[in-house]
């Protein structure tokens, strides 16, 4: 319904404005389908008019530095296996923390969720995104067929 309203309301829309409207409608439709049952859908609808924050690369580059540093430590250290195990565990914990932060920035409303809620919301969000992609693909192929010249 949102798509229909946006598509045909303004013939003078630029391609870019039309694309924004289509994307906004698709996201609103996807979120509305959850009927307020999930945090991400409520956050998506309430954040509709706010600019989306871009994910920073700082988290992943900081993680790469930590992994490089630990490889250097492992190469030069003459300590026993217990110390190496400790380093491996702390690297794993650091990676999990950094990647959890990235995931929180990808899921709408994710920054307010605890770990269990975040993973549950992620499962639902991924399922909904897949459906969104399928619907848009069907629409695109229907539109492509409609715009072909008749024989």
């Amino acid at each position, binding site marked *: 319904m949102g798509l229909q309203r946006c598509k045909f309301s303004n013939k003078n829309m630029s391609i870019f404005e039309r694309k924004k409207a289509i*994307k906004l409608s698709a996201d609103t439709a996807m979120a509305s389908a959850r009927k307020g049952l999930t945090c991400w859908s409520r956050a998506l609808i309430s954040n509709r008019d706010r600019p989306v924050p871009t994910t920073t690369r700082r988290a992943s580059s900081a993680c790469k530095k930590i992994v490089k540093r630990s490889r250097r430590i492992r190469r030069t250290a003459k300590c026993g296996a217990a110390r190496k195990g400790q380093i491996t565990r702390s690297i794993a914990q650091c990676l*999990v923390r950094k990647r959890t932060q990235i995931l929180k920035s990808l899921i709408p409303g994710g920054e307010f969720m605890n770990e*269990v809620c975040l993973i549950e919301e992620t*499962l639902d969000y*991924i399922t909904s*995104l897949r459906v969104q992609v399928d619907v848009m693909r069907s629409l695109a192929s229907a539109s492509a067929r409609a715009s072909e010249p008749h024989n």
Partner: protein
Amino acid sequence: MSSRRWRESSRTNMSEEQITQLLSTLRQLLPEIPHSHSHKASSAAKVLKQTCNYIKTLHREVDDLSDRLSQLLATIDADSAEAAIIRSLLT
């Protein structure tokens, strides 16, 4: 005091178990990696990385499809029969 600590630690154990279970469900939802030779359980860090990459891929697909749709819809005359068909698909 000790019973409180026990309660806190049992709560932590429960949520760790819950997280492990959720992560394995998440792992099943992600696309298979063709070069992955390991059949044992992936670590939490790997699952999180694959999840983030998959979500970014889906976002990019939605973006590309929005692009494609905006170009296609621009070429369709709003009053034509084809537009009516598409309208009926959406309601």
